[in-house]
Structures are given as structure tokens and as C-alpha cells.
């Protein structure tokens, strides 16, 4: 046996004995326990200084109402998302200079190094396809596509230079609502419910209503709870039939029997929770309880038949018909009942100009008519009920639209349409402690890029959380070894539009 071989065998023997000897076992035990003790000590003394950050999840009642970090102006949020991205150039961002350039080739300087979803080669410029006027005392520019909204211009704060870095619907919608263009993060409504709980113990804290014939492109993740316990995800209500699916008791089961069976299931779940401590089990139990309460509360709150006639006329609602207007009225009812976050998606704003329904001078006008009256009615109705001060209304899409006419595959399109545009678009907020009749941010003379007052999805999220009383940097949840927040490492509260 050579010297080298002997050495190797000796090393192998040592390695094996290390695994089994008493001394080695004790050594490992001590260092292991030391590390554990240190870990718990460090957690105890809060070495990162995150004194105010809180993991809000409680095992007993995850939806219990909770106080925010500081006194917030808003108690609830109605977020109106126009899925598909409405054209700011036909609604709020008036560019007379663009009219002069209508039909001319787009200058190279605007195209160099830029990527568009559909525009190829050199597109033509497309002037505004709407008539604009200044409205109210604030002199906000609103086009004739929104004649009703124009009457309440003085309630609104416009953000004229919102930017995003995603030019496809799905990722851009995710960015707007979850703070990340990729799947897996909780949506803003989930964060708010996680932070504030539900004010009405009979209703979920976060409810979602969709209209326009389709769900948003990003799918249901856009109101999902990501890594937060799933009890915080948005509860979607349908416009027709049962508002929430699978909520009704099967024929022959009465409410007492249902209650008894839920109690039995929850007892079994409690035993499993005691053994494994998985928060998802608590979430499941809370959801059973909530569903039981919702069997009574939801049909009641989702019923708009009992609203007086003048309310229906104001909103333009028709009970029984699936429409954005009905959803807006429901949003007001839900907020009145203490729901924290009501998320509305209206599909069909993707004005490419491939056919009449997506032309900025045809389809877009029709879409505007569907939302104009209801949104105006919402602002007025909240105001007359004394709720506008404590309800933040947010309106927007996931990006804007190009000042150029879309030329899909380099061909001239049959209708006037615009491509996806990330560099500047308009959103607005109203109520909830936001300035009345103001405007922040400017775009250049053709509405291509933002000049000043640039804000991002993260800034809007930070502002929404701020109005609810949260420091967006401190509303965190620990997942996979680090504390996550809605705005990730970004976000600035847009103080310029806060009253």
C-alpha cells in the first residue's frame, strides 16, 4: 500500500468518525444551538431597526380591522382600471401641435433605439382625434369624449406624466397593481387588506368587479395575494347570476346544517394547524367563516334593484345588465359598507385601429360613453354622501398610446389607432385627501415624452398607501428570507397632488 493510499484511507476514517463520534456531536450541537439562540436574539432586538414594520398576519383572525401607521385621509379605495390602456391623447393630454403634424412621417429622432409593440418602420403622426376644452375653474383639458366628467374636473388631480417600462398589457398591468411585471407578488388591494383588515366583519376587505367582456390580460394574478396569506386576495364578483360562485347552499341543506359542517371542518383544520402551524390553514378557516357570512351579506350588497330611480338615472345603470355602470354603483355600495379596496377592471381600451371597435375615433368614443356618466355619478354620489373625503378614487390604464398612428407590420391600417406607449400617459386621482382641481406633470408638445413631474406605478402605489395611512416602506411581509413591500425598492409619495 503506497503512502498516498494510506493518507486517503486515514482521511476517510476521520471523515466517518466525525459523523458519529460523541465529541463531534456535542460540538455541532453547541454551535448549532448557538446560531439558533443568536438568531432569536437578533430578531428580538430588531437589529435592522425595522421597529415600525409589522408582520400583520394574526393566527386568530387574519381579517380583523387594524390601525394604519399614521392617521390616513382615506379609508377606502376605488381603483378604476381601464384595461387595454386608454389613449391619453384623446382624453386628457391636449396637444394642438400634434394636429399640425398629422399625417407627416414620424421624425427619426423619436424612433431611434426605441421598441414598439406593433409599429415597424416609419409611422405617420396622428393628430388628436377629439375636441378639447378647458374645464372648470382649474382649467383642466378634457376632451368632448368625456362631457360628464368635464363637469367635475375641479374634483380631480391629474397625473400627466406617468411612465412605465412595460409595453405589453399583462406585465404592465401586473406592474401597476403588484409593483412587479412578473407573476408572484401580492396586488395592492391585498397589501391594503393585509394592512387594514376588513372594516365590515361580514364582507371581504378587497373585492373585484370586471366588465367589458373579458378579464384583464394579466389574469387573476392582478388581484392575487402572491406570497401573502391567500385570505387577502381579491374576491371577484360576477355581474350576472350569483355574484360569487359556489356560495349558495346545495338544495336540501339549510343554514344550520351548513354552519354545523363548517364548524366541524374548522375544528379539524384547527387540529392540523396546531400540528403544522401553516398560515394557509388559518386562511382557509377564515375563508370558510367569511363565505358563510357572505351567503347573507353579498346578495344584499350586490343587489342594486332597491336603489332609488334617481340613482339609476344618475349612474346610467340598468339592474340585471352586465355593465361598467352597474359595477361603479356597486363599488359605491361596497365602500359604504366598509370594503377597503374595490377594484374595477373594464376591458376593451386597446385602441390599435385594427377594426372599428379599436379605432380612436369610433370604438374609443363608445368606450368613453360607457364610463363617462357612471364615473361622474360616482364622484358626485360619494360627495353628497360625505364619503368622497375618505374614499380615494383612482383612474388609469397600464400605459399610454403613441402620438404616431399604428402601422402594424409596416402597413397602413384601415382605422385610426395608436400603439402602446410607455413614456408618458395620464392617470388621475380624486377624493381621499387628494388636491381638488390640480394637475401634475407635463409632456412635450406632441405628447411623446414626459418633461416634468414624472411618476411611476410605484409612486402611485406609494401615494395610495400614504393616503390610507401607510408608510409604503414599512408595510412589509417576510417571504423567502427577506422583507418584501409593494413598491419593492422604489416609490415616492407624490406630495404635489396631496391636499
Amino acid at each position, binding site marked *: 500500500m503506497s503512502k498516498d493510499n494510506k493518507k486517503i484511507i486515514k482521511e476517510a476514517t476521520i471523515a466517518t468518525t466525525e459523523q458519529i463520534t460523541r465529541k463531534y456531536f456535542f460540538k455541532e450541537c453547541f454551535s448549532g444551538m448557538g446560531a439558533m439562540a443568536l438568531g432569536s436574539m437578533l430578531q428580538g432586538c430588531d437589529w435592522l431597526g425595522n421597529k415600525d414594520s409589522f408582520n400583520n398576519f394574526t393566527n386568530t383572525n387574519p381579517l380583523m380591522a387594524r390601525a394604519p401607521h*399614521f*392617521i390616513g385621509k382615506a379609508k377606502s379605495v376605488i381603483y378604476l382600471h381601464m384595461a387595454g390602456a386608454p389613449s391619453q391623447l384623446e382624453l386628457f393630454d391636449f396637444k394642438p401641435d400634434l394636429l399640425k403634424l398629422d399625417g407627416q412621417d414620424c421624425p427619426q429622432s423619436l424612433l431611434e433605439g426605441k421598441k414598439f409593440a406593433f409599429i415597424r418602420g416609419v409611422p405617420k403622426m396622428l393628430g388628436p382625434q377629439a375636441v378639447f376644452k378647458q374645464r372648470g375653474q382649474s382649467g383642466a383639458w378634457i376632451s368632448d369624449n368625456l*362631457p360628464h366628467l368635464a363637469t367635475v374636473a375641479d374634483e380631480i388631480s391629474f397625473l400627466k406624466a406617468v411612465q412605465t417600462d412595460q409595453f405589453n398589457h399583462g406585465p404592465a398591468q401586473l406592474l401597476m397593481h403588484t409593483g412587479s411585471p412578473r407573476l408572484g407578488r401580492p396586488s395592492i388591494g391585498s397589501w391594503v387588506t393585509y394592512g387594514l383588515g376588513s372594516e365590515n366583519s361580514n364582507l371581504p376587505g378587497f373585492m373585484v368587479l370586471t366588465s367589458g367582456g373579458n378579464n384583464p390580460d394579466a389574469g387573476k394574478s392582478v388581484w392575487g395575494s402572491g406570497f401573502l396569506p391567500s385570505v387577502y386576495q381579491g374576491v371577484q364578483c360576477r355581474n350576472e347570476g350569483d355574484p360569487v360562485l359556489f356560495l349558495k347552499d346545495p338544495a336540501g341543506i339549510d343554514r344550520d346544517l351548513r354552519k354545523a359542517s363548517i364548524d366541524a371542518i374548522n375544528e379539524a383544520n384547527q387540529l392540523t394547524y396546531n400540528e403544522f402551524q401553516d398560515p394557509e390553514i388559518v386562511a382557509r378557516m377564515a375563508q370558510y367563516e367569511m363565505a358563510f357570512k357572505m351567503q347573507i351579506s353579498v346578495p344584499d350588497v350586490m343587489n342594486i334593484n332597491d336603489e332609488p330611480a334617481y340613482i339609476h338615472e*344618475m349612474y346610467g345603470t340598468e339592474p340585471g345588465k352586465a355593465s361598467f355602470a352597474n359595477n361603479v354603483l356597486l363599488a359605491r355600495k361596497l365602500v359604504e359598507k366598509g370594503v377597503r379596496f374595490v377594484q374595477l377592471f373594464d376591458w376593451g381600451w386597446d385602441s390599435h385601429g385594427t377594426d372599428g371597435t379599436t379605432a380612436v375615433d369610433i370604438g374609443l368614443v363608445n368606450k368613453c360613453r360607457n364610463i363617462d356618466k357612471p364615473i361622474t355619478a360616482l364622484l358626485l354620489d360619494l360627495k*353628497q354622501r*360625505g364619503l368622497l373625503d375618505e374614499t380615494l378614487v383612482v383612474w388609469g390604464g397600464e400605459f399610454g398610446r403613441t402620438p404616431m398612428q399604428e402601422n402594424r407590420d409596416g402597413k397602413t391600417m384601415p382605422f385610426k389607432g395608436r400603439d402602446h406607449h410607455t413614456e408618458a400617459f395620464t392617470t388621475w386621482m380624486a377624493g381621499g385627501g387628494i388636491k381638488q382641481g390640480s394637475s401634475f406633470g407635463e409632456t412635450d408638445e406632441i405628447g411623446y415624452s414626459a418633461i*416634468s413631474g414624472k411618476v411611476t406605478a410605484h409612486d402611485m402605489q406609494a401615494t395610495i398607501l400614504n393616503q390610507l395611512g401607510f408608510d409604503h416602506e414599512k408595510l412589509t411581509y417576510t417571504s423567502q428570507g427577506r422583507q418584501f413591500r409593494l413598491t419593492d425598492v422604489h416609490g415616492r409619495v407624490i406630495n404635489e397632488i396631496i391636499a
Partner: protein
Amino acid sequence: MDPIVNIFGHFHPLLVHLPIGILLFAILLHGLSYKKRFSNFEIILPFTYLIGAIAALLSCLSGLALSTNGEYDEQILFYHQWLGITVAIVSIVGAYFTKKQKTTISKWVSIALLVLLFITGHYGGTLTHGEGFLTKDATAQIKVATKPVITNTQEAFLYADIIQPILEEKCYGCHSKIKQKGKLRLDTKEWILKGGEDGIIIHNGTALNSPMYKRIILDPVDEKHMPPKGKPQITDQERILLEWWINSGDHFDKKVKELVQPANIAPVLIVLEKNTIKPIVNEEVPLNEIKPANQNSINQLTKIGVTILKVANNSNYLTANFITVIKSNDTIANLIKTVSANMVWLKMPRMNFSNAVVAAIASCDSLTKLNIEHANITDDQLNQLQNLKRVHYLNLVGTRITLKGLLPLKNLNQLSELYLGETLISNKDSLLIQKTFPKAKIIFGNYRTQNLPSDTVVLKAPIKK
């Protein structure tokens, strides 16, 4: 300038800390060596001083390289430079005398060196952080308090009264007498017009062509954005004012009223004036601290379905929403009484009020917001609330309240929002109500949207041939 010299110069802020550390340590060893216990430290002293001297020399050289870019105040630079060189020389002298074991002389040399280090360091700090940097925060506060007040913006001088204070607050730190980053000064008309090392900063009266304005509106993360990241930024109002000032042809001696005022200027000017008047703030929550409310009562209220919690984590005041509780009973009344001192916001929509519960609300002295929309409450019951003087938000929408119930609440002189929609009070009496509650915005609601002919029109695409 030679780029290598330039880079070497940029190492100065790093290198200076070597001689400071080493020489302070040398002086410490030197001092200790007089003690018997540490007398053997003497051997190491010459070496330590020498290392310190070498480090000082390196910092002097890098400092000279840095000073060539001319961004610094010459007077202070002169002192800092020569003091720095003196430090290097004195530390060599220290090394020499400690080597020769001349204890008396070396003692005085070390004391002199200590003093020199502090003075040189302070001048260095002044160069980087600006004059008076040690006491800056304290003086800044005093300055804000004494900021000149503009009572009539139209009579104010655009540059002297409005623009210069902005530049002083946001730009002078790096672009004035004390420091001239990019060889730019903004503290006099002549310097502003002269520009910096990249040429003039204001081009023929158009803000968007002027480097000064362009830098301000650049993306804040852009390297060329001004003021740099981390420094106080130009606010949107200030930006609009600067834009106007440049666009109007950089006027240095015109009054506001003499200039053309674009549409976006008027609101900003109003704010300038308003800043001088203290805004009337509604107390959402009383300012005085209060002890936490009885937790037991809170738990019991929660149990019967009331959402009751602190208005915020950092406050002991309470907000309660009786959204799922619409029946009054004596238990509720008693529980409210036990937390009445802390209660500030109360929502009791559709509540069927009993006299006991009304009396309980009447005992909530701190109450600022009361929402009893669609509640079943009588005029007499409402009259019980006439001593809730702090209430500024009162929502009576949908109640059966008449003037008889409302007018006796005249003591609620803080009332700023009064909602009377769908009540038995008509807006014919609005003058009378306004007289009773002079500060209040009275909202009768009954809003309608118009019926426009276009509402029902659906556009169709023309059939293309």
C-alpha cells in the same frame, strides 16, 4: 488636465484620512509613553510619525491635484493647502526629534501637530460641505423662520424676491462663493450669465434650451440631474417659477407685475402668498396626548360586531364603525361611555338610536367626526349632542332630521362639513343654516348627471369598400 492627475486628485478625500488616523495614533502613543507602564512605546514613535508623514505627503500631492480643477473657494483652499503641507513637515520634524529622544521639543511638536490636524481638517470640511457646515442644521431652522414674507407677489421683484431665495436654498451649496462645482456660480447676475465650464447656462430666454433648466427636469436618477441625488430637490412650484423666469428673458430687475404671466403661474403665485398665512387646519384628531382606552371595553365592543380600533398605531384615539350593528341597547351605551374620552371618529349608519346611546355619544368630548347617515334619530335626540364642540364633520344624510333638530347645535362652531342630503331640511333654508354654522360647507347633495343626446349614441365603423 491630465486624466491621471485628475483621478489621483479624486483620491484626496480618501487619502486624507490616513494621516489624520496615523498621526492621531502617533500623538496618542506619544502621550502614553510618558507613563511608566507604556514607556517602551518610545521605540515605535519615530516610525509612526514617519508613516504619518508619508501619508500626509501623499494627501498633499493628491490635494494639489484636486485643487487644479478650480471648484473651490480660493481663500479657504489657500489655508487648507499650506496647513496641510505644514502638517507633513511637522510630522517629519516629530519623527526626527523622537528618534533623537529630545523629549521636551518632541512634546511641543506633538501638541502643535494635534492643533494643526484639527484646523486643517476643518478647512477641508469647509471646502467639501460649505461654510458653517458644523452648525448648518441649527442655523437652517432659524433661517426658515426668518425667511422674508411676500405679501403681495405682484409687487415683488421676480429675481430678488422669488428666484434668488430658491437658488440660495437649493443651489448655493455648490455654486457660489464657497464652492464652484463645474466652475459655476449662481450668486450674482454676472456669474449666472457667464455660465460654467460647459458654457452659458441660460440660452436666449427659452427654458427648454437652457442647460440650467434642462438639468433640473432631467430624470432624478440621471447623473447630470440637478440638484444631485440626495440633496434637497427643486419642488414643482419652484420649477414652474424658474421656467417662467428663464422664459421671460432672465430678468434680474423687473417686478412680477411688469412681466407676462402665463396661465400656470397664477396658482403658484397665490401659493407663494398663501404660504405666509397659516392655513386653518381642522383637527382630525385632538393634538393633546391621551391614555389608552380601556382594552376590555374595546374587546367587548368588537365582540358584538363593532369595528373599533385606534385611528393609527401612533395614537390612542379611537375610531368606531357600527356598520353591522343597527340596534341600540344599554350595553352598547355603557361600553361607549367607558371609552368616550378616546373616541374621535364615530360611524353609526342606519342605527336605531335609543336615548341611552345618544347620551353616550354626547359624552364623547373629543369627537371630531360623526356619521349617522340613514339613522333613526329624532330631533330631540340630536339636540342632546349640542356640546360636542370639536365636531367638524357631521353626516346626517337620509335621517328624518328637521331644522328643529339641527339649529340648536349652534355650539358646534368648528363644524366645517355638514351633509344634509335626503333629510327633511330643504336647501331653501341654507342661508339660515349657513348663519348658524358660519364655517361649514353645507352639502344638500341631490346631484344629478345631465342627460346628453350623445349618451346613447353608439358609433359604428363605416363600411369600407
